[in-house]
């Protein structure tokens, strides 16, 4: 006798791992056979096996039949049916939304909530490529030896038991979502179907490792055919579990991530080492579920201009290897599924970014000067000599920071003196007499170097790192110093010493340098006898001995990341407090001012490297400080130069003085916003007129208009203006009839009052109920704080003119941007 119960699957995502797991836990309490038949595809699943259930591909509204038979069938039937009636439908709850903060999807990007996930932007950019899940592409080192069926089976059983207890142990202290995933793993380890599949292979004389691999690919194949995305994601769980089992038997599986084509790398976290071992040509983007915005991997990503977002929870499980994804780290999203309209949106995005680039092109090869003629050198940070040409082509006036530790970290062995010499020489030659500041080895903190065998520390940032380890590793550091000194014969090489906290340290290094120079002299090897030697200002103690340090050093460079961390006593890796170490805190600004004043008072040169040097919003403060140089990531150089051109040193010094007396970083931000300086833009210009737009709908049309403002540098936040236009449009449509629409808004994000005019190749239906399609869009954007109302007369005149057919007809019948501009200027009386 068996008991049967028919029902309709109530779960939106079908029976995926979580509901299957819940059913399995109930069925497992009974000795009876409990199976579930999918009437749609006639598959029968063992309810006690999660894998079996998810393989049977139960979908929403499938007819299902529960079949129970065995000794305790009545009790089993009652409990399972009770659960199916009560509770089962709710077992499908969605994962909680992650990181909902301030992600704003522009109206022109028409995308469903389930088609993307969000994260925190650390390196802006846009990338469309296949995904590669790192730490998942493993090549298992499984020996081919087969000991014997019983022995192999025993190995497998032992592996299952130890992995089970390992997962169970790690279950405590985990967040709810992570626990659910681990629970799913636990049920996979104990799954009878998995055991059966492995046992079957072992019986056929396969060793335990290969049997597990075999089972892994069997289930992966089966699940691939299911129609549920959620179930397909289980493949990774199964692979994870199988890797875990293999590790239990053969020790750590050698994981090697190999990229063979351009892709967006997805991982939980990446150490700088792991990052550097990847083929950089192929890394088009980085999506990490952990990682802070200042970790060294992120610094590397920024240095290479690789679009990156972090905090994308469960990224490795949501995204599949080989899946084509879009990483939009301008918004902070990863798009998992692309519709035609999403593809079209990104085509427009590419167009917008290319146009913006052209806008800044003129700043690439001009030196950075303020409007009142003060020079501030804009230099680039690099980590390899290959980047040198790239940064000079993008307008760098020098290399302000060559981080050398990456040379050590990307190789298994320490690079020899000669190898390093060639690298530094190459950078010096590429710089062609522009200065190249090479920082000596800065290892420790979050930058480990395995070959040094440094002991792990409780507080690595306060520990044995950088200049502090030089005396112990004298041989290694001598090789580097020698290489740098030799390279000084080939260009304007300068040497920078990191983490100096006392005078002794710099004296030690300088003595070492003299020793090396004497040695080179004896060998008749060329070098620059006057190579400048500088000190990184990052440890607060140095600020109080600047008078003494100035006697020893030729120049200084402020490392704002570490300095802020030490000044505020904030671990920048700790998400909960990272915000406290805000560069714009008045305390920090005072520190910076003191440093620059003291150094300048003694006639020495001071620059800044580190994150703050690349912050466009902080530019008035950096100029106001009177820094001799700022050194930043290559991508922002033209932008920063453009910003400097729009600033006056005299005004910036006043802004700095006010900022120092603010009471919070927020107040400093408001002060900077209020003093935002923009060049004088005409209200309309040819670059705001398009006469052959291919926009397909009104959302695209508005996006295109707003993108013109972005390309013309009239706004840095086009998407926010776009939103404001749509907020206004929601009040009532701005389509006028006569083939005209005039979307408009007041916006705090507009740097200038602007009129954009767009003529469409194909008229756009603005409202479904309106017959009259829009042929011309005229967008008016008014600066929020424009109290002077400079251009209001122009706007109101335009609004009045539009009501007259002669005005409209002229615009409808002319397609030359120059002619239209002239006409508008005359009719609106714009001087």
């Amino acid at each position, binding site marked *: 006798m068996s008991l049967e119960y028919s029902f309709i699957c109530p779960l939106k995502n079908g029976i995926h791992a979580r509901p299957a797991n819940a059913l399995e836990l109930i069925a497992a309490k009974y000795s009876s056979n409990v199976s579930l038949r999918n009437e749609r595809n006639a598959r029968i699943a063992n309810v006690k096996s999660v894998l079996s259930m998810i393989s049977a591909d139960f979908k929403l509204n499938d007819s299902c039949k529960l079949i129970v038979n065995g000794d305790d069938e009545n009790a089993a039937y009652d409990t399972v049916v009770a659960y199916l009636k009560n509770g089962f439908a709710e077992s499908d709850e969605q994962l909680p939304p992650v990181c909902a903060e301030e992600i704003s999807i522009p109206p022109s990007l028409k995308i469903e909530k389930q088609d993307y996930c969000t994260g925190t932007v650390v390196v802006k950019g846009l990338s469309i490529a296949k995904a590669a899940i790192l730490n998942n592409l493993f090549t298992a080192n499984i020996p081919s030896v087969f000991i014997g069926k019983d022995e192999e089976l025993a190995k497998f059983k032992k592996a299952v038991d130890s992995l089970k207890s390992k997962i169970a142990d790690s279950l405590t202290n985990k967040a709810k979502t992570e626990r659910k995933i681990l629970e799913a793993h636990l049920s996979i380890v104990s799954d009878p179907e998995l055991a059966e599949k492995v046992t079957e292979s072992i019986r056929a004389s396969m060793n335990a490792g290969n049997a597990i691999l075999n089972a892994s690919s069997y289930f992966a194949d089966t699940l691939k055919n299911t129609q549920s995305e959620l179930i397909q994601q289980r493949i990774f769980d199964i692979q994870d579990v199988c890797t875990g089992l293999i590790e239990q038997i053969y020790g750590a599986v050698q994981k090697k991530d190999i990229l063979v084509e351009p892709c967006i790398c997805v991982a939980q976290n990446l150490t700088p080492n792991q990052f550097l071992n990847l083929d950089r040509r192929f890394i088009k983007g980085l999506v990490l579920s952990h990682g802070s915005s200042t970790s060294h991997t992120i610094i590397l990503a920024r240095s290479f201009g690789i679009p990156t977002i972090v905090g994308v929870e469960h990224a490795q499980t949501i995204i599949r290897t080989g899946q084509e994804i879009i990483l939009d780290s301008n918004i902070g999203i990863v798009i998992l599924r692309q519709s035609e309209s999403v593809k079209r949106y990104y085509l427009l995005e590419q167009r917008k970014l290319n146009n913006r680039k052209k806008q800044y092109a003129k700043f690439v090869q001009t030196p950075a000067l303020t409007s009142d003629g003060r020079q501030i050198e804009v230099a680039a940070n690099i980590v390899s000599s290959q980047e040198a040409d790239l940064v000079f082509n993008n307008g760098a006036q020098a290399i302000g920071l060559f981080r050398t530790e990456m040379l050590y970290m990307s190789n298994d062995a320490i690079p020899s003196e000669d190898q390093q010499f060639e690298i530094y020489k190459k950078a010096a030659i590429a710089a062609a007499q522009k200065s190249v500041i090479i920082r000596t080895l800065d290892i420790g903190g979050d930058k480990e170097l395995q070959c040094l065998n440094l002991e792990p520390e409780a507080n690595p940032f306060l520990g044995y790192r950088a200049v502090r380890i030089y005396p112990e590793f004298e041989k290694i550091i001598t090789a580097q110093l020698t290489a740098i000194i030799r390279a000084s014969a080939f260009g304007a090489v300068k040497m920078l010493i990191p983490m100096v906290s006392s005078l002794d340290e710099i004296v030690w290094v300088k003595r070492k340098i003299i020793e090396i120079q004497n040695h080179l002299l004896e060998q008749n090897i060329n070098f620059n006898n006057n190579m400048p030697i500088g000190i990184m200002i990052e440890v607060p103690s140095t600020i109080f001995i600047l008078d003494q340090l100035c006697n020893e050093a030729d120049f200084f460079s402020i490392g704002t990341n570490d300095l802020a961390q030490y000044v505020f006593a904030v671990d920048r890796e700790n998400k909960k407090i990272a915000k406290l170490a805000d560069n714009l805190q008045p305390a920090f600004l005072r520190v910076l001012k003191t440093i620059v004043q003291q150094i300048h008072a003694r006639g020495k040169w001071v620059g800044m490297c580190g994150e703050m040097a690349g912050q466009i919003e902080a530019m008035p403060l950096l100029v106001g400080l009177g820094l001799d140089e700022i050194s930043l990531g290559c991508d922002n150089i033209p932008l920063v130069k453009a910003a400097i051109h729009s600033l006056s040193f005299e005004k910036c010094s006043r802004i700095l003085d006010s900022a120092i007396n603010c009471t919070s970083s927020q107040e400093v931000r408001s002060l900077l916003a209020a003093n935002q300086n923009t060049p004088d833009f005409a209200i309309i210009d040819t670059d705001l007129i398009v006469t052959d737009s291919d926009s397909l709908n009104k959302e695209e049309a508005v996006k295109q208009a707003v993108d013109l403002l972005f390309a013309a540098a009239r706004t840095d936040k086009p998407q926010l203006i776009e939103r404001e236009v749509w907020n*206004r449009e929601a*009040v*009532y449509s*701005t389509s*006028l*009839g006569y083939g005209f629409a*005039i979307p*408009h*808004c*007041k916006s705090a994000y507009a740097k200038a009052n602007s009129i954009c005019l767009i003529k469409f190749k194909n008229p756009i239906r603005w409202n479904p109920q309106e017959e009259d399609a829009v042929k011309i869009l005229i967008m*008016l954007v*008014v600066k929020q704080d424009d109290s002077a*109302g400079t251009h*209001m*007369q122009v*706007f*109101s*005149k*335009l*609004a*009045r003119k*539009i*009501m*007259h057919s002669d005005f409209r007809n002229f615009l409808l019948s002319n397609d030359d941007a120059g002619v239209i501009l002239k006409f508008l200027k005359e009719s609106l009386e714009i001087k």
Partner: protein
Amino acid sequence: MKFVAITACPTGVAHTYMAAEQLLKFAKKLGHEIKVETQGAMGIENELTEKDIAAADAAILAVDIMIEKEERFDNIPKIRASVQEAIKNPEAVFARQPKN
């Protein structure tokens, strides 16, 4: 007939002025006299005086928002319309029966 009118839209950038222009244009076409005050982003322009209002037969309030100094129209018959109507169908607005 002799009209006074006020136009005022939410942003005060475009529709206020388009409606004003449309009322001027159609008053002329229909043989009416009209003076239009705008309450836009530039504040009140072409302000209606007590004398203007006293001399008019009716007031047209083509407004989507609360306007300033509405009490001026307490004692005059009014035609109320949206800014949209004034722009898209001004003739119908003029044809409407003023109410006290």
